[in-house]
């Protein structure tokens, strides 16, 4: 790809992100185990399991938690193939790069010695690397399950239920709401520029144009935020937004919450150092 296609690649990524967000919403609407729980249970339960993964020091326990995550994915109608490509493979690639040096650098019993004799792969190093990879894979899988089975706005509502300040939750909601609109505007501005561009533009000129486009986008976002504030004011907003909590805990939610917490506590107990 040519260097000046970087912006196009960025915009393509944004479009891909919109698609991913749409897929997430579709998964969230499917009838599944996690979807059946109150969003607050999903937030607390899955974060409890993530915490258990972080606090566990035994690979077998973390692998068991990974199996729990896969079972949850299956029972929640999450596509395992998509999960494998989008999460497991990507995490494996990135975490392996980080974990690789520890295989050689961690002191311990050598299991492989390279001919020069200066470089050893140690058993402790391999254990550390596997622990890191399984821990990250499991934690990211659990977090992804939360994101896939719970619309972003329900996660925010759940945070509000945990007494996270209204201003913070509203700011996150607004950001999520308008980031799509601004990204769409940016993509349209870029396309409009492309349609009026002939030939290859010098890198310096392209950078200059991108900076100016960024400035225009910033002005548009300021204008939009002013108008949004007026629209809120027009419907009675006076600085403290009142919201409706539609969440209701049923017996199934209490059973789910207890199960999540129980699995987490057992995992931490069994997996202690």
């Amino acid at each position, binding site marked *: 790809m040519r260097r000046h296609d970087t912006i196009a690649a960025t915009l393509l990524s944004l479009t891909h992100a919109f698609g991913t967000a749409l897929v997430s919403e579709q998964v969230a609407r499917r009838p599944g185990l996690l979807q059946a729980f109150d969003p607050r249970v999903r937030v607390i339960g899955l974060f409890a399991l993530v915490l258990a993964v972080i606090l566990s020091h035994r690979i077998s326990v973390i692998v068991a938690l990974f199996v729990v995550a896969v079972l949850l994915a299956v029972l929640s109608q999450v596509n395992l193939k998509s999960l494998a490509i989008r999460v497991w493979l990507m995490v494996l690639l990135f975490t392996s790069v980080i974990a690789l040096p520890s295989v050689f650098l961690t002191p311990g019993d050598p299991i492989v010695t390279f001919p020069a004799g200066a470089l050893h792969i140690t058993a402790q190093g391999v254990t550390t690397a596997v622990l890191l990879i399984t821990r990250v894979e499991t934690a990211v899988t659990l977090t992804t399950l939360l994101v896939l089975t719970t619309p972003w706005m329900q996660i925010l509502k759940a945070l509000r239920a945990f007494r996270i300040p209204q201003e913070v939750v509203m700011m996150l909601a*607004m950001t999520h*709401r308008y980031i799509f609109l601004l990204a769409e505007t940016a993509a349209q501005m870029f396309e409009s520029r492309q349609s009026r561009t002939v030939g290859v533009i010098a890198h310096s000129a392209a950078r200059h144009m991108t900076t100016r486009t960024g400035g225009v986008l910033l002005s548009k976002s300021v204008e939009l935020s002013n108008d949004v504030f*007026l*629209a809120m004011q*027009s*419907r009675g907003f006076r600085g403290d937004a009142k*919201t*409706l909590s539609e969440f209701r805990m049923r017996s199934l939610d209490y059973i789910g919450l207890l199960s999540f917490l129980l699995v987490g506590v057992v995992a931490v107990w069994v997996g202690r150092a």
Partner: protein
Amino acid sequence: MTAPIFEAKQVSFSYEAIPALRDLSLSMEAGRSLALVGANGSGKSTLLRLLDALCFPSSGSISFSGNPLTPERLRADGYDLWFRRRVALLFQNPDVQLFNPTVFDEVAFGPLQLGWASTEVIARVNSMLETMVISHLRDRAPYRLSAGEKKRVALASVIVLDPEVLLLDEPTSMLDPRSQSQLIDLVQNWKGTSKTVITSTHQLEIVEDIAERVVVLEQGSVAADGTPSEILSNGELLLRANLVHAHRHKHGDMVHSHPHLHSHARHEH
């Protein structure tokens, strides 16, 4: 004679150095429907924002039911809450108005801010979603909707407040003819005989359907005030206000021109 619900006296307003309204005076009666027509930049949207007390005149005054609309008055004794319960504005750009996570939350936002009880909010919102035929969009994110659906949701979010006065800023812009017609029907059904509806538009073809009185704005001032038939038959005025264009064509060897107006029901020359 009915007392004016809004009275604007010699109102001027500028965006920094750019004047939007100049010495505008206008009186509006309760329970009537009025169309503000004018070309882009004639001051329609600005006037609606002033009537909704979102900004205030740089000179002149505006009153609502005899009470002056000033920042001080709005801040005093919960007057803003009283005013917001009675006057609602539909913004031209629905993306500005749809800032909530779901369609349900969007429609519930206004009633909640105005202090309605939760049970009443839920009942009214559900009923409004049915009335506007958008119940199926209840849990959808507003930014994922089509232009027509966004307009419906935005309209539901203000009509649910059951205001005495509804201000509509270009309600049918960006809509296909069918959606335009449906939106007009929804507003007319809601309006009945007791509500005041003030609509800004530059689409002359909908004026007869939405208003009993038409005010033409030109460069921030009132250029004409009359019934739809009086205004729509004044070709010279419409041409001057940039609301119609001159249509040139040939009759045999003779070329002539005249104002050109399209309408839902007819296409007239």
